[in-house]
């Protein structure tokens, strides 16, 4: 019998290798800084961060499934809980909460009170349109796409813009049925 699915990522977080938080924060900061220098347009930087996140996400999901021992989620609600409670804990060391479900259960918000990516950061006037943590939305989008869920992830609240928390809206666009690349008679 497989072990029961963990309800929180604490145990996994305790066992995986970690890096110094400041090193992590400053490395991410350096990436954003470099993107701003290279691309000049804030909008382009947002896009690029999202794309980078996507590329991370489509790989990270494998790592996540291998290490976390979670079983198949029955619905999108469970998926969202899994991302917030296990995924975020495992890779970022923080726990998020899921709220603001819409009526048909396809759209919710993942709220982060604490975000290690933004320690020290303050947005200067020249980058007001920047979604500094846009990489996170890309990661979620990429990871869910690999498990057959097309999603749209947008920022609703951002502490760097003066809000009181980080809120990511995850909207399930469609669930792609599993397709087999071969035909029955081959």
């Amino acid at each position, binding site marked *: 019998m497989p072990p029961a699915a963990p309800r929180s990522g604490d145990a996994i977080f305790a066992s995986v290798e970690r890096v110094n938080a400041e090193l992590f924060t400053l490395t991410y900061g350096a990436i954003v800084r470099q993107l*701003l220098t290279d691309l000049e347009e804030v909008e382009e930087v947002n896009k690029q961060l999202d794309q980078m996140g996507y590329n991370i996400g489509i790989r990270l999901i494998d790592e996540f499934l291998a290490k976390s021992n979670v079983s198949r989620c029955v619905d999108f609600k469970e998926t969202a809980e899994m991302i917030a409670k296990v995924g975020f804990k495992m890779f970022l060391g923080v726990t998020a909460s899921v709220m603001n479900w819409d009526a048909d259960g396809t759209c919710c918000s993942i709220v982060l009170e604490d975000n290690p990516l933004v320690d020290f950061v303050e947005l200067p006037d020249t980058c007001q349109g920047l979604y500094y943590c846009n990489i996170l939305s890309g990661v979620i989008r990429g990871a869910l796409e690999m498990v057959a869920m097309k999603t749209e992830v947008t920022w609703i609240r951002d502490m760097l813009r003066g809000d009181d928390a980080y809120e990511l809206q995850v909207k399930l666009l469609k669930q792609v049925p599993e397709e087999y690349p071969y035909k029955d008679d081959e």
Partner: protein
Amino acid sequence: MTSTACFIIVSRNDIPIYEAEVGSAAKREDAAQLHQFVLHAALDIVQDLAWTTSAMFLKAIDRFNDLVVSVYVTAGHTRFMLLHDSRNEDGIKSFFQEVHELYIKILLNPLYLPGSRITSSHFDTKVRALARKYL
């Protein structure tokens, strides 16, 4: 009691990156220029003194009439200069140390370019609060 105090931060390339009049005395028209001038003149002394000691706080290094210049040099050779007429050395030392911590936070911000002007309003508010507390 009214006091005069002017605080500036000078980058390692001798460019002023932050300025604040933090005294409680009524502002005089020509005061700002005078303060800048006195602080500017003190930079040479700082340059000589900075390498003679391992302490960051250089204490009072220069005076002009009743105004005294106290300086704190960070490891990156950024200079915090305070022009004041009070005689509260302990307070000034604490002020510099706390501003140093604020400055490090600013420096760690990946979106801040070292050596450029500090435009953060958060930093400004904090510095003014510290000035009220210690000076």
